[in-house]
């Protein structure tokens, strides 16, 4: 097992001892959301500004089932994953043939469209008030109303998601998506139907977003309208960029930084998103690879200093 995996495992065990259980749970949920985005952003080179479409759609549908029918947890998760994947297929189908700014704007515009559906359809979604009253039905005798039990469940699902995503990026598909990111004309010329592969990346990313959305609705017992709004799309994007979209583990670090910042700073400073903006600018200007790159650079700087010190002696 690699060192990165050991670090992730250690974090999963230690986190609930360090912070509130709900916060710890939210970090892993957001990390799943980020993993899904990064398949598009980091691997395929598609900047989707509409990931909350899949997150929110899954949260509403599964939340509705949980609320009104107290569905089995796994059934709710399964439905959420399918809703995430299907909504992503729909959005992806309309977007994959566009590129650059058009692509970004279109993902954003479609996200807005879903947002307004949720906003208007108050009988189901509760509109601005959100959809409250979502429970966490027990599973195999485990009571998920206990925060620690729910934390363990989410952390386990995160690890499973991480493993699945690792298999995906290490498969031929992972290489093909990166090839498309690097040079889509050549990828097409050597035999890949580029729009179709981009669509596949959307669907997989949407499935992960859907899973995250359902877990989120169960965590807070409510689907807030923002869950399908552009702020959520922006949050996961910023978090992933800050963590490092060029790295497989970047979204996890991004999730830690983002959720921790929003928790600790937002209480003392209402305008904390400003800080997020500053962090984003720093990343874009100096550390395109986000925290992962900053960390790697710090280490090589230290090594060099050590080596110099060695020579000086």
């Amino acid at each position, binding site marked *: 097992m690699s060192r990165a995996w050991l670090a992730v495992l250690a974090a999963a065990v230690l986190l609930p001892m360090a912070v509130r259980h709900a916060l710890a749970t939210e970090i892993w949920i957001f990390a799943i959301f980020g993993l899904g985005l990064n398949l598009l952003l980091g691997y395929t080179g598609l900047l989707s500004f509409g990931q909350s479409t899949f997150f929110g759609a899954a949260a509403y549908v599964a939340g509705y089932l949980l609320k009104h029918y107290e569905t089995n947890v796994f059934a709710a998760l399964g439905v959420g994953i399918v809703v995430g994947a299907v909504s992503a297929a729909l959005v992806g189908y309309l977007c994959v043939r566009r590129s650059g700014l058009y692509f970004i704007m279109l993902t954003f515009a479609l996200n807005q469209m879903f947002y307004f559906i949720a906003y208007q359809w108050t009988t189901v979604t509760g509109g601005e008030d959100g959809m409250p009253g979502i429970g966490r039905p027990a599973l195999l005798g485990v009571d998920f109303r206990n925060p620690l039990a729910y934390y363990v469940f989410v952390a386990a699902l995160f690890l499973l998601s991480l493993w699945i995503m690792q298999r995906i990026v*290490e498969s031929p*598909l992972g290489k093909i998506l*990166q090839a498309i990111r690097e040079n889509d004309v050549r990828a097409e*010329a*050597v035999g890949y139907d*580029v729009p179709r592969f981009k669509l596949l990346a959307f669907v997989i990313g949407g499935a992960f977003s859907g899973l995250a959305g359902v877990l989120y609705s169960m965590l807070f017992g409510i689907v807030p309208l923002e869950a399908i709004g552009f702020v959520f799309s922006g949050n996961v994007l910023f978090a992933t960029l800050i963590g490092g979209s060029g790295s497989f583990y970047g979204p996890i670090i991004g999730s830690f930084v983002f959720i921790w910042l929003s928790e600790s700073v937002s209480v003392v400073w209402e305008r904390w998103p400003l800080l997020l903006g500053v962090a984003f600018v720093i990343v874009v200007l100096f550390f395109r690879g986000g925290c992962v790159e900053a960390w790697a650079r710090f280490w090589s700087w230290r090594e060099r200093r050590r080596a110099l010190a060695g020579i000086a002696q």
Partner: protein
Amino acid sequence: MALLRTESLTKAFGALTAVNGVTLEVQAGTLHSIIGPNGAGKTTLFNLLTGQFPPTSGRIVFDGRDITGTPAHRIAHLGLARSFQRTNVFPALSILDNVWIAAFARGRSWRGLVWRRSDGYAEVTERARVALADVGLADKADQPAREISHGEQRQLELAIALAAAPRVLLLDEPAAGLSPDETQKMVALVRGLKGRYTIVLIEHKMDIIMGVSDRVSVMHFGSLIAEGTPAEIQRNPEVRRAYLGGMVAE
């Protein structure tokens, strides 16, 4: 029988007819060169053959099958592989991955696409390594493509086409931008491929063409103005007037 054939192939970009009624036959196993001055439409002809864009009119027949209008990725699966005049690789990927991607596509099987680990595809990796060895890049396999020299990128460009195990190899000025030394190496390389593949070669440098070609077609302002053996082409007065005169003086 001709392996690759075009019938009155035409491509117009607005008012400009880049390829104009080209009828061409490439015999299996030969090296067929296409020459012509800048802007003659040679690259556009390749773009048509590989399905980059559809022709305005005319037909393309590959191995007895009409492939006119077939999208680029399907044509690649049929066994038509090309290299590009302007180096067109995957910069951040390793040299091996650059070639692996092409080798995998030619396998025409999507089995294990999202789940099997890519290092488990032994035959694909083997084909990729052979292609790298063919162009002399075997020892650079793990370097990112963006870190190698221009000359090596030209070799990689060729390796990507070879990795597809093509039935027809379309080479668009493989020696573009190379030093005289590197050009020599590239010529030797192409000569080594002759006989193993059916090759269509676009080239500017006359000495290369005359030494390696079985047949030569000359393009001028989008049209074919002559075709024959290298010796016939050199003697052809129309070719000399349109094109060779300038080149020979160079």
